[in-house]
């Protein structure tokens, strides 16, 4: 391709770049990085903190201990603090382990894969917590219905169940919206480039 040869010649003659002095370089290298990895790190830490705070909200076993005893999955409520504490520790360790493995000096494909793997650790943490929160909500709902009472107020129960369903749908929508925004901002470009690299190897 003749145009490409011409471009190659011109490309290698380029000298019209803004000259950056050694002093400017020295200042630059001590500035804070604003890379995608840095943002993922900060956002992940915030997500860990927020979810840990949330776990305090759903550890309501003290006030509900008497009513819940003998109900199905009671053990989940009984050990909720330990379960959520343990999942937090496991995921935080996994997150730091994956984060430390990110190296900008590896191949592009490996680098993107490692960044995505790190972010996925936080996602799995969030999913695990959502499942726990979901189970606790279901347990609370089961507990609310007076099974042993012969005068079950069906109308009241249905209204309550409907409200719970609406609340859960809104909650899921909120989480979905949050992910759309975060992924749109951070991961979209990485996913696109990763898919492009995979396509190169699978197309041929």
């Amino acid at each position, binding site marked *: 391709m003749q145009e490409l040869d011409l*471009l*190659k010649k011109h490309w290698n003659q*380029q000298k019209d770049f803004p000259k950056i002095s050694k002093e400017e370089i020295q200042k*630059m290298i001590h*500035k804070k990085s604003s890379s*995608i990895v840095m943002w993922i790190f900060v956002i992940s830490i915030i997500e860990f903190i927020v979810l840990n705070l949330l776990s305090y909200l759903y550890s309501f076993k003290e006030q509900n201990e008497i009513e819940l005893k003998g109900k199905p999955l009671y053990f989940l409520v009984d050990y909720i603090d330990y379960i959520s504490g343990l999942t937090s520790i496991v995921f935080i360790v996994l997150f730091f382990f994956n984060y430390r493995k990110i190296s900008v*000096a590896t191949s592009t494909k490996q680098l993107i894969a490692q960044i995505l793997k790190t972010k996925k650790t936080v996602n799995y943490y969030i999913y695990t917590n959502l499942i726990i929160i979901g189970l606790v909500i279901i347990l609370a709902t089961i507990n609310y219905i007076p099974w042993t009472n012969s005068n079950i107020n069906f109308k009241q129960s249905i209204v309550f169940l409907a409200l719970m369903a609406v609340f859960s749908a809104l909650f899921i929508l909120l989480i979905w919206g949050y992910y759309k925004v975060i992924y749109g901002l951070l991961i979209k470009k990485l996913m696109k480039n990763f898919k492009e690299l995979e396509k*190169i190897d699978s*197309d*041929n």
Partner: protein
Amino acid sequence: MCDTLDMNKHLEPEFITLLDNNQNLIHKVCRLYTVDEASHKDLFQEISIQLWNAYPKFRGDAKFTTWAYRIALNTAISLYRKKKRSIDTTSIDFSIHKFEYTEYNEEEEEQLKAMYKALQELNDIEKALVFLYLEDKNYDEIAETLGISSINARVKMNRIKTKLKQLLNP
């Protein structure tokens, strides 16, 4: 911690000299991946930070330039986030206007301008392939840098050439 700081202090002048001597390499990556001067400087800064952070692990068994190419491209492709600016600078197309074409005749200048414009139409990975090709890297090196197979790097480069031809003659 103190040892790391001391080591970094010791490495800093040596690193700054190396970066200064090879700054054209980084400028070329910036020129390919950004379209305005402010973004060019942002990306230059981010690449410099990434190079400096990775420098203590640079063993010297590879050439500084080979190592720097990889980090500069990886930063542009995977780490750099374009900042939102109040003015839409994409329409200015800095890259084309700022180039010097003194040695070239009018026809060649037009061809070059069309080529640089076509380059901006490529995606991030295609740009990386073209960049390494223009820098005279062989397909093994291109493949290793991107993490794809050597044969596929060659096939992809041929496809990019076809794409560029189509962009030049729509």
